[in-house]
């Protein structure tokens, strides 16, 4: 149970090696934290994630197998987690950037990105929502992106999956509104992570720790949507409304 001071006892991370999600777990108040499940495919990154949280003295950190693309397995995985005890906070953090160039040449690669980022998230998101509704409390954090606000030439496959995910998460939040369960949609800008390594940085670039702090504050305040950094909300407010030719020019310059 989340207590009166917003201290969670249990967290489930979907995409267990996501840097933003891990930083979020680290930034959470942890005096009551007793169960942290990192769900993802078994690999070195997941193993390292378990180690890094445990090394900080966080109790009950465990890895569980989860494949975003294997939607048929989602129901069983989520039921298994919730049957063993209530989950106060779920962070839906998996996603791939993909290679826009390659995807345009080989549409199956675009399907791959869409399956993970959108289809997989819709599937597991609904299973999580079902169990949050059943337990009558809990928060779901969905990592969207500013790319969801307006698709750019350079990564519109990725952007379109985030746009879909973002719309889904907003709708899910509305469906759960007033039910004790809630959805927080997070729209980070450019974040320095493994996913963006080697790419030219955009203005207002942040670190995973910065995004994590924004998420934890937003949870405490019961917000439904948050940008990271916060002022990106105003930037994107303008971007969304730019005429196509102008936006094309700007995004070309950004590459």
């Amino acid at each position: 149970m989340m207590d009166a001071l917003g201290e969670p006892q249990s967290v489930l991370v979907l995409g267990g090696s996501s840097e933003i999600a891990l930083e979020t777990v680290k930034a959470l108040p942890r005096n009551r934290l007793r169960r942290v499940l990192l769900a993802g495919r078994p690999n070195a990154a997941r193993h390292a994630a378990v180690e890094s949280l445990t090394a900080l003295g966080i109790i009950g950190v465990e890895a569980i197998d989860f494949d975003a693309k294997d939607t048929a397995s989602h129901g069983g995985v989520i039921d298994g987690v919730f049957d063993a005890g209530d989950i106060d906070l779920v962070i839906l953090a998996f996603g791939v950037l993909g290679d826009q160039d390659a995807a345009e040449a080989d549409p199956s690669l675009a399907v791959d990105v869409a399956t993970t980022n959108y289809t997989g998230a819709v599937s597991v998101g609904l299973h999580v929502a079902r169990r949050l509704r059943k337990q009558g409390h809990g928060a779901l954090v969905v990592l969207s992106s500013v790319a969801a606000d307006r698709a750019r030439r350079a990564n519109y496959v990725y952007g379109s999956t985030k746009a879909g995910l973002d719309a889904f998460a907003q709708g899910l939040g509305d469906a759960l509104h007033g039910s004790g369960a809630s959805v927080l949609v997070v729209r980070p800008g450019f974040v320095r992570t493994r996913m963006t390594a080697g790419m030219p940085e955009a203005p207002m670039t942040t670190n995973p720790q910065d995004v994590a702090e924004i998420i934890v504050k937003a949870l405490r305040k019961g917000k439904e949507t948050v940008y990271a950094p916060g002022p990106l909300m105003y930037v994107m407010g303008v971007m969304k409304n730019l005429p196509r030719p102008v936006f094309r020019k700007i995004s070309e310059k950004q590459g």
Partner: protein
Amino acid sequence: MATKPAKKSAAPKNPLKRDDNERLLTGWGRTAPSMAHVVKPGSIDELRDLVAKAGERGILARGLGRSYGDAAQAGGGTVLDMSAFDSIDLDTVHGTVTAGSGVSIDSLLKTLVPAGYFVPVTPGTRMVTVGGAIAADVHGKNHHVEGSFGSHVHALDLVTGHGRVEDLAPTRKAEHFWATIGGMGLTGVVTKATFDLIPITSSLISVNTVRCPDLDSVMASMVENDDTYRYSVAWIDSVSPSGRGVITRGDHAPSAQLDAQQALDPLAYEPKVVATAPPFIPSGLLNKFTVRAFNEAWFRKAPKSRQGELQPIGEFFHPLDGVQEWNRVYGPGGFIQYQFVVPDSAGYLIDYALKRLREVGAPSFLTVLKRFGAANPAPLSFPQPGWTLAADVPARVDGLGAVLDEIDGLVAASGGRLYFAKDSRQSPEMVAQTYPRLAEWQGVRDEMDPRGIFTSDLARRLSL
């Protein structure tokens, strides 16, 4: 209008759809809400049926929701509205009453006071039910001499996890009886209880007030004089480092003490609600400055010393009931009430706790200090001999959690503990350490509720 489309019978039920009886519940502190199915049984048979059908998310009785934290909510489960259990049978031969568990002290007093009786124990609000008073084993201003509510209960009916009605008393199935007193509703559902009353000849309280310049003098005066009064409590100025305070003590006024006007109707009882807090209050309203001003005014309002002032019951026992929904003054973030008891040997923790709360910038609106007398045999009953301090603080104060955990540690080390009816944030480890009879209670509870259906958010949070 066109005819309704035929229902698709094969479609699975939408798990996100809301049922009509689902309600979002919080405690009085308005923190950590959860959703439950609220059902109002109209009879014992309906209640037994609901208990028999309780699902894996459990079932729990709720009274008037005055527990500050998550004691009267059960996320995803069934929460019982017990208001149909509303009988009041006064036995003037034995000076007892048998009341339904859904009866509030408010409505009891409206029946009892004009008949010349008072409840054996009342907490700081009369908006609690008999069931709630038993579940939390509530205490009042007379604890130092007369103990908590459960100590005055002769018998109670409980629907256990087996779906049976057990007739419990301190002399019948004593283990089950005492597990239910202070058992936070986790041993079953109380349907009615019989308890002692205090005979009175007037509805007024004769009150002595004394203002003390610092915490030491407050505590010294309470140690020295409390035992000569039935009722005693101190209000502490939590903003002032001196810990100055106002002690009010009293007893039911004999009718002989009333003036001619009052003597015309010595048992008149008309509690008043003077105001209702507005539904929306900005979160910044309660801050260091307003709390300081309030505390200053409260201290100045009290006379340096006054003897034998006659106060109505409501003014003396339930001052906050005069403002309906006063819990809203803390705004949307809600608040917590932190209440601990420590033995006399650790009385210094009162001063230390107030100092730490001041340092973290958690302005306590209302801070109350009281002495407890002997404990009763209930394993989870909160009161034990010593000092109890209760402070209201807004939940959204940075660093509050760490400071309270620190005080918890000192309270635990001194042999003290926290009150479940107020708690909304202690750790399961703290409970295991400070309620040494928890395992014994759990054994009895498991016997009374083998399927483990009686549960609450508090029980889940604290692994009760």
